[in-house]
């Protein structure tokens, strides 16, 4: 890099900033207000641009790219409807703290506030669903804002940043100096935890009899999984993972009880109900995890480690608050636990082992029809740690979280906080672009997949061979499950018997389609899909009325779980 001050247009500055930040791929969709930037994209070679077929998909793809790599994902959209289509993507990334920069075009400065063509107040709309946003008002501030956007996205508690750029600013020519450093006096995240609090927490751990590690998505974002494993192994304290933390401990780790919460397994939820010390690492006590708050970890003191002070004591009283990055806090905490007596927790581990024996995470398989849980476990057997698994939202998402043998963080990509149907496929495209050597499988449902099915065209064009496994029960399954349990089986607007021909749909868009009705067909289809290296829809007919169990009814106490039947004869539904 030469240190000459260059004259260039705002549009060029946007491209130069993206290149300077090391971004290799931008996902987007052009339009009137962002055209000058697209003109510069055409001229440059510093990064690839992937044209999705919907702005929402562009943002989800950038999100999937960020989740798979830990780097900042970048998406670009035009003003007005281009931006409003991107809002769901921003909100999805915001709820899961995903580092992302979204650049939107805006009408020229002179037209702002006049209800111009394709004008919408982008910063106003995105304020509650971004970590921060900018409306660029002068060309001079553009390089600084771009630099700050990337910095804010990846530091502290990560999150999506919107940069809204009026068209005339992208045309204007000025000096470009990309700042080397960022100095925002009002923004100083805390990374190192308070020493004294950490010492106190270590003492509490040594004094407890039934401690429990409660690991959340923050452990993934902080790339702290090796330290979480080290902490668990050194202390022999059992671990529960949230939906966002699947893979942190690694399947098969004897200390991992499983996932807790509404669809958590029996041992995990009982552990949380009976523990005397919760050690929360980057989890935020979401209502889908806690169930009835007054019954949640009722007998426990709580150590809460989080980089965001606002997460601490938001929902539960915390005895040992530690503000900091999980990785750095664990670096300080683990040495303080040198002399921990692991035998102390032996009785507790034994209780939990018996709970798990009593009600293991299981399902009753069938020879007559394909069970969704079998599909998930089978994918795990066939591709295992080699794959990145994305999902949409609903029953298939919970089955995947419960049954897939995740080995490492960033292997499991799903919309946990916002619960966005239509997320999985574009996120899988983003993950595949980021990690072309991995097999990327989107586990989806017959409801969710239709919400971004146009991305078949994108995946076919750019040769991103994402395998979409559609667990097809001809229902909007999770809503149907609630209707079965809580609405006396009035299946209001959840019957999806009227469906497209998924096989032909995939073929029409340049992909491959498979109709799967038996286990043998599934094995054959998956092998073929991996060999063909082409985007596909695998339409798997599964048992229609399968439920996600265990289940804690919304607002109920964690220990009051509906458990799976132990035999095949209970169906109760026709």
């Amino acid at each position, binding site marked *: 890099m030469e240190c000459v001050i260059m004259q260039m247009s705002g549009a060029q500055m946007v491209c130069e900033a993206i290149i300077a930040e090391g971004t290799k791929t931008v996902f987007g969709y052009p339009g009137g207000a962002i055209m000058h930037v697209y003109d510069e994209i055409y001229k440059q070679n510093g990064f690839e641009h992937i044209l999705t077929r919907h702005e929402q998909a562009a943002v989800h793809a950038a999100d999937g790219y960020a989740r798979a790599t830990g780097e900042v994902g970048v998406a670009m959209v035009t003003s007005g409807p281009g931006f409003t289509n991107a809002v769901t993507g921003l909100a999805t990334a915001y709820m899961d703290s995903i580092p992302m920069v979204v650049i939107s075009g805006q009408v020229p400065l002179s037209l702002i506030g006049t209800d111009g063509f394709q004008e919408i107040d982008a910063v106003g709309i995105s*304020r*509650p669903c971004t970590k921060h946003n900018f*409306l660029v*008002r002068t060309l001079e501030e553009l390089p600084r804002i771009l630099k700050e956007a990337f910095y804010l996205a990846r530091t502290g508690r990560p999150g999506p940043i919107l940069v809204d750029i009026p068209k005339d600013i992208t045309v204007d020519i000025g000096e470009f100096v990309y700042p080397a450093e960022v100095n*925002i*006096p*009002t923004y100083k995240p805390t990374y190192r935890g308070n020493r004294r609090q950490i010492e106190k927490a270590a003492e509490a751990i040594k004094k407890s009899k039934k401690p429990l590690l409660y690991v959340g998505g923050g452990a993934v974002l902080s790339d702290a999984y090796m330290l979480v494993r080290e902490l668990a192994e050194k202390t022999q304290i059992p671990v529960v993972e949230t939906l966002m933390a699947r893979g942190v401990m690694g399947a098969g780790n004897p200390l991992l009880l499983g996932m807790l919460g509404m669809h958590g397994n029996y041992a995990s939820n009982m552990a949380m109900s009976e523990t005397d010390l919760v050690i929360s690492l980057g989890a935020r006590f979401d209502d889908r995890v806690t169930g009835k708050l007054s019954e949640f970890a009722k007998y426990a003191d709580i150590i809460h480690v989080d980089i965001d002070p*606002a997460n601490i004591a938001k929902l539960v009283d915390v005895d040992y608050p530690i503000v900091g990055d999980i990785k750095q806090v664990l670096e300080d905490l683990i040495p303080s636990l040198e002399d921990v007596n692991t035998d102390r927790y032996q009785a507790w581990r034994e209780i939990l082992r018996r709970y798990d024996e009593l009600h293991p995470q299981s399902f009753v398989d069938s020879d007559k029809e394909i069970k969704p849980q079998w599909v998930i476990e089978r994918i795990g057997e066939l591709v295992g740690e080699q794959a990145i698994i994305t999902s949409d939202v609903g029953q298939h998402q919970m089955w995947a979280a419960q049954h897939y043998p995740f080995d490492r963080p960033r292997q499991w990509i799903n919309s946990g906080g916002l619960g966005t149907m239509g997320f999985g496929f574009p996120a899988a495209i983003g993950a595949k672009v980021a990690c072309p050597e991995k097999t990327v499988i989107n586990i989806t449902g017959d409801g969710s997949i239709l919400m971004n099915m146009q991305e078949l065209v994108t995946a076919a064009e750019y040769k991103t061979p994402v395998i979409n496994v559609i667990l097809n029960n001809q229902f909007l399954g999770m809503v149907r499950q609630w209707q079965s349990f809580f609405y006396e089986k009035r299946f209001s607007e959840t019957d999806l018997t009227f469906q497209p021909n998924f096989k032909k749909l995939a073929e029409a868009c340049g992909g491959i389609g498979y109709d799967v009705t038996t286990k043998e067909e599934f094995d054959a289809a998956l092998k073929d899909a991996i060999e063909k290296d082409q985007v596909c829809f695998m339409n798997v007919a599964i048992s229609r009325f399968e439920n996600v169990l265990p289940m804690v009814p919304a607002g109920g106490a964690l220990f009051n779980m509906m458990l799976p039947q132990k035999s095949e004869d209970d169906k109760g539904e026709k």
Partner: protein
Amino acid sequence: MSLENERRVISVIVMNESSVLARVTSLFAARGYNISSLTVAPIPNSDMSHITIETQGSPRVMEQITKQLHKLIPVYKVIEHEEMVEKEMVLIKFPIVENLSDISALCSAYNGGIVNVGTEMVIAMVADEPCRIRHFIEAAVRYNPIEVVRGGVVAIER
């Protein structure tokens, strides 16, 4: 006033940039917090502004308000006032037919006075503690005020 819904005054020191006030107020709206009064003015010789917010809520809600405000990128400092001097200003317009000496006496009892007299009306200004401002407005009712404009609370820590 119960502890669960205690009245509090918060000062928020923010960078002086566009839409910063919208960030603060939309946070209150989005999270269901209440704003009773709000004043904003630039801090002299700086690029910051001082926002004073009168609000109420349980201790947990107050803690969340403070933390969430802190999280906003342009927010420099949040002061949850404990030991403070607080003042509020009010302007009141009376018809000129009312007894001016009574109005004047009332205003001076509340730390103010008549600030403008026209052919049709007089305007009085009072600056005092918020609860005294409430009393003053109640007392002024008998002089048939035409218009009452309250300024919102400002506070400074002692």
